[in-house]
């Protein structure tokens, strides 16, 4: 047995010798990236350009299925890359910082202005003043979800896109009972959503909910949103819709494909959905069965006070790109990341190399799709495999190729959705939030469904929810959040 183990050891040793014998400034980046991006070949000219610029040997490894779990496992097993991208605000990335697996970037900030600018935007993410990575919060200050409706149904019923809760109720009721598809059967529902609890945020915000994450009580302290005065009336409104039978009774079974499918099949008339690049796809897919179908969207309805509305929450989670303690040449790694968040770097991975992948005539840019397809660029003006997933997504970057036929509607939908976005009280994820929030969310989901189904009255359910939520860690979490909130003011 000893012999065998020593054999194993020598194999391992041999491998480690091999890897360290390679070029001194090899940079290995492990990231979930963008699952749908093109495969990067060995002779990719964008990678080559970066290599040349920084005298490095860049090796980007994308984990299958964009699975951050895989990144966590690799890191926890001591399989350190030089640069690693994981999920921000999770147990995993927190442990990287606690255990010294990733290095502080503060010492490099002065020398690298783009890095500094990035970290300044996320200054609250520093821990005791130290930045351990480049956070990238998705939908931080931009959003894309709106309630999409069948425009042709509205037209047929002689109604407009609803602007307040009463109109919304009227529209959803008409979608259900007034035979909007004209087949003489009552086989449609007004509204549907996705598991676990659909998206009824527009109701809570219409009744006066203020923030994306928590609410404030009269004393200015943080409380969960279901302890806010807006919760019970909003819940009552949702329950009225449910009892009237205008909500798809099987919405709890919908995943994103199933929800879309019901919309395409004309089974539902309205759904909350990400718009942006999906606008054209949703409309065209609906047209495959109903050629006259259109997709309309607008600002979410206002509440009884005539002014409150909202739909989206400011993002609080996303990715974090760090340099590991195992990195042999952190200076080079920092220089590379600085480039990735610079305007020059963005141009390189989105447009390509001027003269090869695109030509510029004044402000007008002409893409050379043939050249782009030789490297890891996606077709029709979209970006290189390095572009998205770790530090940017198209939505947050406001990126949309000029040639895209549905560009205007996509950008319009972002504008509306962002107008309906609500800020957070606390920007960072606190330690206890990481610890408890998934279990607490679970408690909320179950009470929400129980109240909706009528297993428990709204008043009683809310009271029990508050009690259980607080006793299962919520109390401690609130104390911590209030401390952080007070400090930030």
């Amino acid at each position: 047995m000893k012999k065998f183990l020593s054999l194993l050891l020598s194999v391992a040793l041999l491998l480690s010798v091999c890897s360290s014998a390679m070029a001194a400034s090899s940079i290995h980046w492990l990231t979930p990236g963008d699952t749908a991006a093109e495969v990067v070949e060995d002779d990719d000219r964008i990678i080559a350009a970066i290599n040349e610029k920084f005298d490095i040997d860049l090796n980007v490894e994308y984990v299958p299925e964009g699975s951050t779990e895989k990144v966590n496992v690799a890191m926890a097993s001591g399989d350190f890359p030089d640069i690693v991208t994981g999920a921000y605000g999770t147990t995993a990335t927190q442990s990287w910082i606690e255990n010294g697996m990733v290095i502080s970037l503060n010492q490099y900030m002065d020398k690298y202005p783009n890095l500094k600018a990035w970290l300044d935007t996320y200054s609250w993410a520093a821990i005791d003043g130290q930045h351990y990575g480049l956070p990238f919060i998705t939908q931080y200050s931009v959003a894309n979800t709106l309630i999409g409706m069948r425009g042709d149904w509205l037209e047929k019923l002689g109604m407009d896109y609803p602007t307040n809760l009463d109109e919304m109720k009227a529209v959803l009721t008409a979608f259900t009972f007034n035979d909007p598809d004209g087949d003489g059967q009552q086989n449609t529902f007004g509204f549907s959503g996705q598991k676990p609890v659909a998206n009824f945020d527009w109701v809570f915000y219409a009744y006066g909910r203020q923030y994306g994450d928590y609410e404030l009580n009269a004393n200015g302290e943080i409380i969960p949103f279901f302890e806010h005065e807006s919760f019970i009336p909003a819940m009552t409104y949702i329950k009225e819709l449910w009892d009237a039978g205008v909500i798809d009774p099987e919405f709890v079974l919908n995943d994103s494909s199933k929800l879309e499918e019901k919309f395409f099949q004309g089974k539902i008339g309205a759904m909350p959905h990400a718009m942006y690049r999906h606008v054209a796809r949703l409309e065209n897919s609906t047209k495959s069965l109903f050629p006259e179908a259109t997709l309309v969207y607008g600002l979410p309805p206002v509440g009884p006070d005539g002014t409150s509305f909202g739909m989206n929450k400011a993002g609080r989670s996303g990715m974090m790109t760090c340099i590991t303690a195992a990195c042999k040449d952190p200076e080079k790694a920092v220089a590379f990341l600085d480039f990735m968040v610079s305007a020059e770097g963005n141009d390189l991975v989105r447009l390509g190399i001027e003269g090869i992948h695109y030509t510029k005539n004044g402000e007008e840019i002409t893409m050379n799709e043939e050249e782009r397809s030789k490297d890891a660029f996606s077709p029709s003006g979209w970006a290189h495999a390095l572009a998205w997933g770790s530090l940017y997504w198209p939505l947050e970057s406001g990126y949309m190729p000029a040639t895209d036929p549905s560009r205007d509607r996509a950008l319009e939908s972002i504008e509306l959705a962002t107008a309906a976005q609500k800020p957070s009280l606390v920007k960072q994820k606190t330690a206890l939030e990481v610890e408890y929030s998934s279990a607490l969310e679970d408690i909320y989901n179950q009470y929400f469904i129980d109240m909706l189904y009528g297993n428990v009255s709204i008043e009683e359910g809310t009271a029990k929810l508050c009690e259980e939520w607080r006793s299962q860690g919520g109390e401690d979490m609130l104390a911590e959040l209030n401390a952080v909130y007070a400090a930030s003011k």
Partner: protein
Amino acid sequence: MKKTQNKIRRSLGSKIFDALNLLFLGLLAFSTVYPFWDSLVVSFSSLKGYLSSSVHLWPSEWSLEGYRYMFSNPTLWTSYANSIFITLVGTLINMVLTIMTSYVLSKTYLRGHRLLTFLCVFTMMFSGGIIPTYMVIKDVGLLNSVWAMIIPTAISTYNMIILRNFFSGMPKELEESATLDGCTEIGVLFRIVLPVSIPAITTVTLFYAVEHWNDFFSAIMYINKQKSWPLQLFLRSMLYENEAAYQSGGESLYLLGQPMKMAAVMMAIIPIMCAYPFFQKYFTKGVMTGAVKG
């Protein structure tokens, strides 16, 4: 198998039983084939054809779009090759190791056999979990190699126990007579035990082959390089969009339509299902008859 029963006149009860039995099994078989058929039909439908009904018995509008999309990706062929390699080589290694182990452990006269078996069974209950396993696989240098899908699953205790059970159920006289003829224990394995155990060996081979073919989890865990991906992971990567990319508009311009997803599903399961008839031949043979005659 000789149909001895036919010589005797079948009673009425027996006939009724046969009819009901066939009816029952037929209905069951119908219910189990339905999802496969539904998916197959969807894979050949256009999006419109798919959406127009919730039950799919025949494509209402044909389309090969899904298959065309899959076939247009060159990585498909590499992943097919990887999967075939993993399944063939992996199963071969599985079988050699499993036969050796279960044959030895089936010998109840051998000292320590019970404790050794217990130590194998123990690993079915207790495992180290993902991290320690990953560490071992990293240390033996299997990361990013197709061998990571072969070596760490070289023996399945479950299959080993099944085979051992078959071996130990074999009539002792067969082996004893061979031993008297001067066969060693190894000789008995090759000349007597293996030929007589063909159905059991086929069963276990099938179990292993299907496990290898369907395995995607170890690929997610141990293989980042797309060139080494097995088919299942490649197809999954086409099926499941990452939520972040979906919400914030990564390069996935659209969620794949259901027909394309089903085309991917069909491409994953049809090859392994085609291997069935080959295996099935060995199930129905009356083996003991063969053994006695030979």
